[in-house]
């Protein structure tokens, strides 16, 4: 059985079928990309994976446990965390506080511990702060630790979102168009960082609509269009797949 198994998930909004019977599998330590033209249903897939939406049909199995239709909290606890296509940081909180919020799901001290500043509170709070600093260091944001998230430049905000996701102790990290709005140099750096994450044992699922970004980095690629999975394979296979080319060119034609 695969690490993460998605079987025939379907989501309808009124009459519109946003995601139609999509299946895919992810093995531990892979970088998987889900690509497709704008509006293909990629983000909806993420929303179903992370518990934002209930799924109408199908199953999502992670490490042998079904996680579909669980609350976001349960899913984060199980080890899946995400970033957002349009950055959603806690803008008026400091960089380190953003990461600390991420660690909270694994923070055990109770309200009374914090109220009375018990030893347990102080021990755990310091532990999490150290952990957060380490994460920021690894992503190159330690210098920015005291700044407010809002004041970071765009590229660093994206990185901070990833740092926050890592802080939840996620095993699988879902990245929703992480390179969007970055210049080629920034996005190359980011891809390097994603590779490093994979080498540390994280499993990564990426969403992109720009094929060129994911070609070099992905182990395997799934392509969806109009809510349906139309292709699947190694990057080289996808690049030459007729259906994929048609979906993308067709999309261009419609746009023009």
């Amino acid at each position, binding site marked *: 059985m695969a690490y993460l198994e998605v079987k025939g998930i379907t989501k309808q*909004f009124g009459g519109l079928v946003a995601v139609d019977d999509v299946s895919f599998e992810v093995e531990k330590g892979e970088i998987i990309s889900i690509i497709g033209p704008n509006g293909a249903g990629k*983000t909806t897939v993420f*929303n179903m994976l992370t518990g934002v939406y209930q799924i109408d049909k199908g199953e999502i199995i992670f490490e042998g446990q079904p996680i579909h239709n669980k609350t976001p909290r349960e899913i984060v606890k199980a080890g899946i965390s995400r970033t*957002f*296509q349009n950055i959603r940081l806690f803008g008026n909180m400091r960089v380190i506080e953003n990461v600390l919020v991420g660690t909270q799901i694994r923070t055990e001290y109770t309200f009374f511990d914090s109220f009375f500043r018990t030893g347990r509170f102080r021990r755990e709070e310091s532990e999490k702060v150290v952990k957060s600093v380490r994460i920021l260091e690894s992503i190159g944001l330690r210098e920015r630790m005291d700044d407010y998230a809002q004041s970071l430049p765009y590229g660093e905000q994206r990185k901070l979102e990833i740092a926050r996701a890592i802080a939840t102790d996620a095993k699988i990290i879902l990245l929703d168009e992480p390179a969007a709005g970055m210049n080629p140099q920034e996005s190359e750096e980011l891809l390097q960082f994603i590779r490093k994450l994979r080498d540390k044992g994280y499993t990564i699922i990426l969403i992109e609509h720009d094929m060129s970004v994911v070609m070099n980095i992905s182990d395997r690629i799934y392509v969806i269009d109009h809510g349906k999975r139309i292709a699947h394979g190694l990057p080289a296979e996808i690049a030459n797949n007729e259906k994929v080319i048609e979906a993308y060119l067709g999309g261009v034609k419609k746009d023009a």
Partner: protein
Amino acid sequence: MAYALIAVGYSLVFGILRLINFSHGSVYAFGAHIALLFVGFQFGVIPAVLLSIVFTGLLGVAIDKTALAPLRKKNSIPIAALITTIGISNIIQNLLMIFFGSEKKAFPAFFDFGMVNLGIAKVNSTQIVMCVVSLILLAALMLLVNKTKIGLAMRATEQNAKAASLMGINVNFVIGFTFFLGGASAAIAGSLISGYYQIVYPGMGFMAGLKAFAAAVLGGIGSLPGSVLGGLVVGVSESLAATFLGSTYRDSMAFIILIIVLIFKPTGFFGKKTITKV
């Protein structure tokens, strides 16, 4: 029925701005007082009410232009606009108190044709007039929103203000116009209801505003027919509560209904469901 007229004002503004206009209750009291003022000038009842409609409508526009429009421009957090309307409500209500005195004042009953026998029950003619006028006004409002050009612009702004402005709709004008309608409907409600109870006081808007708000939410805020239905339900349940539980609980009825509705069906009878986008 009376609540329906006030509720419409909440619905209009909420529909377009997604903002609960807390000042609406005091705008309603303002409308009643202005009508009273002009009645005092011996203008006759109908012209007084018409003048009140104009002035109260303008007050609505002024509220929007001076306090709310700058917030929209700055893209402030929603809570900022909410607090602003509470502040405005404070200002209007207390200014009314200063200029008119906080005591209850007599208001002429202007449609009194005695009691009418309807076979099963005797009904005060004022009540009938109120019902009829309310229905006509609501029908007119609905025609305005659904059939006219400005109504189309209002509905477009409601759907997507940015897109509407790109299509050449003057969004600020539309919002201002909506506030005018809200104010005008409050003035009509104020005059009618004062004519019925024959008293006016600055605090009158507080309770009535709250109950009307409950009615608007019950009917599905943002929906005009919903407001009417909500108003009816609140009115009827209040009379029932007064009859069966004693009059002291009358005023709590609206809130109890409100809380129950919000728990079980927060969108009300006619409200639309929204999908959270991530």
